[in-house]
């Protein structure tokens, strides 16, 4: 390489480092926030997870006691089953619905902006307390859903939120209903796929379904992957809906006792903040494992069109 080339290279490095400095300065408010309100409390909770901390008195070091106790806590295991069910059923259903609506909206229909907003609305409201309360009313024994069913001559509709076999289902339904954010991301992804692929395929006589399977899905797979990772992480942390729909109890009979809800009860109702901290770290580990698996498996199905 010539001297001029090297000179230019050096100049560029200097520029880059100056740019970086400016970048970090702009990042400072966020960095301070990260350290003070995320990393600080996280480390504090890591310490507390090795203590017995009854909230009103200070923490005392108990080593691994909290972690060992988790393995002998049947309600904790039950809360894990509830949470896993919610994630494994809720997330795929939500993503399939989001993708289906996104594909529909991408067909170039009139009033796209309007429909896009309408379908996005539940995502804005879905995690709110008001909607969870509304849900509880709708699926109550004498709620809107059962009134509708009764007018359609269903004789004894179940009490959806009062029956342990359906209560979790209503909360999953609420989650699926809030498909707006993955839908918007899918829609953006669909827009990125060059139309010439579809034109070439239809010239070759490929059906719409074949086109979807062989063009849309592979080219959209990075977006699917992104949504999947994000939604799984989010679903593991779901709390508000279960808290409101069950009145904070996780009932009936622990059927909506999410891991996060049990954690909250241990910490704030039973004054066992040490145990609750240990549970929080278990959740971090579980989410970490799921995300790692997601990334490991992704290389077999995610297709990057570079």
């Amino acid at each position: 390489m010539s001297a001029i080339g090297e000179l230019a290279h050096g100049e560029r490095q200097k520029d880059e480092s100056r740019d970086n400095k400016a970048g970090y300065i702009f990042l400072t408010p966020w960095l301070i926030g990260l350290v003070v309100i995320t990393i600080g409390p996280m480390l504090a909770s890591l310490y507390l997870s090795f203590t017995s901390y009854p909230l009103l008195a200070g923490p005392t070091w108990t080593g691994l006691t909290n972690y060992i106790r988790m393995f002998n806590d049947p309600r904790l295991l039950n809360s894990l089953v509830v949470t896993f069910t919610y994630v494994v059923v809720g997330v795929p259903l939500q993503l399939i619905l989001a993708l289906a609506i996104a594909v529909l909206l991408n067909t170039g229909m009139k009033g796209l902006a309007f429909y896009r907003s309408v379908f996005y609305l539940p995502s804005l409201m879905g995690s709110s307390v008001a909607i969870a309360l509304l849900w509880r009313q709708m699926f109550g024994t004498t709620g809107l859903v059962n009134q509708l069913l009764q007018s359609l001559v269903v004789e004894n509709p179940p009490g959806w939120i009062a029956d342990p076999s359906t209560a979790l289902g209503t909360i999953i339904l609420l989650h699926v209903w809030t498909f707006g954010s993955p839908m918007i991301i899918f829609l953006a992804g669909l827009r990125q796929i060059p139309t010439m692929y579809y034109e070439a395929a239809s010239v070759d006589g490929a059906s719409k379904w074949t086109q979807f399977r062989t063009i849309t899905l592979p080219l959209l797979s990075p977006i699917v992957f992104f949504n999947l990772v994000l939604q799984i992480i989010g679903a593991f942390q779901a709390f508000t809906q279960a808290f409101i729909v069950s009145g904070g109890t996780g009932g009936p009979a622990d059927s909506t006792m999410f891991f996060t809800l049990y954690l909250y009860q241990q910490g704030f109702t039973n004054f066992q903040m040490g145990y609750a901290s240990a549970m929080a770290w278990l959740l971090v580990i579980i989410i970490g494992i799921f995300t790692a698996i997601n990334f490991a498996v992704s290389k077999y199905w995610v297709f990057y069109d570079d």
Partner: protein
Amino acid sequence: MKMMNKVAAGVVTIGLALTGCAAGGGAPTTNDQGQTVIRFSWWGNDTRNRLTEEVIALFEEQNPDIDVQGEPGEWSGYWDRLATQMAAGDAPDVIQMDEKYIAEYGERGALLDLEAAGVDVSRFAPGTVDTGRLSSGLFGINAGINSPTVIANPAVFEAAGVAIPDDTTWTWDDLAQTAQAITEGSSDGAVGSQNYMMVEPIMRVWLRQQGQDEFNEDGVAFDAETLGQFFQQGLDLQQSGAFPSASVASEELTKPVDQTMGATNRLGLFYYWSNQVKAFDNASGQDLQILRPPSMNGDGDHELWYKASMLWSASGRTGNQEAVVKFINFLANDVDAGKILGVERGVPANLDVREAVRPDLQASDAKIVEYLESIESELGDPMTVTPVGGADIELGRWGTEVILERMTPQAAAEGLTTELTSKVQAGA
């Protein structure tokens, strides 16, 4: 990398500092007008909030050097908030406390010994002071007396063509038959009785009539077999139609009080503390009748007790002890304060205040006072304070397992007893 280590060390220090800062406090708080500021936290409803604000205004008028800042709240969320405030060293000075939690806070040194601090209980009715006493001191002042009641809705009885039984002689069997008759006689879907199996004070009444109790000085005071019989009774009455169906009953557990079946005239009999009768009178628009819970043999041995509906406590870390004691004395002993508060928090324990309040009582208040005075001569042993860990009994969760027939009554009773015993032992 060195930089990163420093950052990490700093973060750990901050984290530990944050967790360690719960201790300390105790400095007096004043505002810029030189007034002593005390914070006063309670749970309640609209009526209570209004009355309490009036009492605060009167107190401030008489004590211009003290500024009382009210922190009203709802029962749900109140305890989470209080626990968090306590842990953060930011507890309110004066705290509306419940008997269920007083040991939880008092035994851990979070509350002020009010007797030592100089609160006056000399005019309190016999037996009404010790409701706030733990081994290490008097941590709560009775804010009003309560007792378990059976509430009968005359409109529902009448519509079903059933007479309200004589509560001095009725038995649990009478209750079961009455409730079943109401369900069968009602044309509009009203049900005879709330499922009392998941009502904690009724469980306690029943256990006491069996010679046991929910708690005593040693902790849990019942055995699984006896509780199993109680659960079995609940299941039987559900199957006979005396109680609502399982899914209705389980849904009732999470409803706000004013939306429950009792408040909406769909129950003949339901079970609450006496001070809640007024709220149900208002919600249902009926002149509800207060009955004693039944006894085993109809001999009038109801084994009832007086409970403090709630208590006045103070934070052990308050820096304004003098103002706090003055304010609690005012709440508990001042006749004018009593006239404002009425019996909304239960019947005043201070006999002077009770007499002063009596002439102005409204109909619903008057019948509550009348009920409490009529049972005074029949009371069983006083109750002991709920031990640490005992607040978390989870009767609703285990009861739901029974009514949904996911567990046998005996298995659920054993589950509850084992769980509660280990919680109480862990707390002791």
